[in-house]
């Protein structure tokens, strides 16, 4: 199972959603995920992957794809300091 599939599985499980309804293109808004749900998902991801996701990155994860991208880079040990700035950019989902 790759990172994307695992993320979908965790989001579906934590939100009590049908996994088939959670796709790479789903935004948190579409899935009914509010800020507290987001924190819960983050907690589950950190537990699952045994990593720490910095708050600055976490606050801007508003879609499944953003989660997968951020996680992939954290797992690869890459510098992720630019991710927060990137997410703050044009994405409407991140504007809240």
């Amino acid at each position, binding site marked *: 199972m790759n990172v994307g599939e695992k993320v979908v599985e965790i989001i579906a499980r934590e*939100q*009590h959603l049908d996994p088939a309804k959670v796709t790479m293109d789903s935004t948190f808004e579409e899935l009914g995920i509010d800020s*507290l749900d987001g*924190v*819960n998902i*983050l*907690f589950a991801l950190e537990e699952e992957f045994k990593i720490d996701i910095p708050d600055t990155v976490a606050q801007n994860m508003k879609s499944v794809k953003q989660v997968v991208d951020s996680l992939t880079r954290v797992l690869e040990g890459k510098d992720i300091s630019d991710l927060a700035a990137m997410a703050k950019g044009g994405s409407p989902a991140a504007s809240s």
Partner: protein
Amino acid sequence: MRRVVITGMGVFTSLGRNKDCFFQNLVQGKSGIRRISQFDSSSLSIKIAAEIADYDPLDYFPAKQLDMLDKFAQFALIAAREAIESSGITIGDEERPRFGVVMGSGMGGAGSFDAGYHNLYARQATRLHPFTIPRIMHNAATSHICMEFGAQGPALATATACSSSGHAIGEAFHMIKFGLADVALAGGADAPITYGMMRCWESVRVLASGNGNPATACRPFSADREGLVIGEGAGIVLLEDLEHAVRRGATIYGEIAGCGMSSDASHITQPTVDGPARAIRMALAEGEVAPEEVDYINAHGTGTRLNDATETSVIKEVFKEHAGKLAISSTKSMHGHTMGATGAIELVATVMALERGVIPPTANYTKPDPECDLDYVPNQAREKPIRTALSNSFAFGGLNAVLLVRRWE
């Protein structure tokens, strides 16, 4: 001054999951006390509690909602649903800001605390579940009730240990009486049967062991009483301005005529006679009821040596020679001491006794104690028309709440 009536009632207890079942079992002297089954209690010295048997939260809530609900808030919502359903009320959008909620809890989300700290200390987790705070906070029950029923008026939580829901109902009563709200849900909920909480209570040395027979463990006012039994559950009443209730053609179950509140200001666990006596007098004064008019007292009656003897002295102090003519019973003998829920559960028992003319007994009474020499309605329910009754709540910490109720005629 506005009059305040009870137009809805709900309970969720070890003795029944709704008010009719609960009252029927009370009248029959049944017991909700059993060996604890929700966790492994074999290492505890006290292994019994008034536990809601075979409780499955998924029978009442979808999984997503449950993530956010400690058991005490679950119990509160279930009892609130019955209170609303039994009232037949529908609250329009424009009425919501006049719809209040006051819920008491002694322990809040005890189970979520316990589970979280177990992870932290025993399993060496370095962080806790993000829903821990919204689950454990004492006001969670109030907030979830507000959300489910759209109550947007004054809403708060009380935490006065065993008097929590007596105070909650008193506060809601005064809110309506003094015009801050027209309708309010008020009561209490607690789910204290957790490993950690049972250990806390064990250490106070006020719990009855039952000696192998849980059903007769709690024996209030009896010479051989050995302590209280922890229980879980919720009780809620819907209070309403009388004119509001009459306008919508509501069924009226009873009237709250007064509420007395006082502090012993003496000792953190040892009760006084003066503090509770002042609370009773205050309730009678507010309802303009003479002591001789009181027919029944649903006692705090925990079953500890000290409480029951002191409460007897309190009743004699206030009622003088009428004390011997009153019917007094402790329904805790059957539903246990449900902490912050107990005042509300007992108020429902009291209102149903007024409504039906049947006084529930003090169960498990075996022999008289010279220090407890009043009429405790031992073991057998009593059919007797009663018009005016008190429900006593005296808490650890010396904080007392007494509710005065009248039969609706």
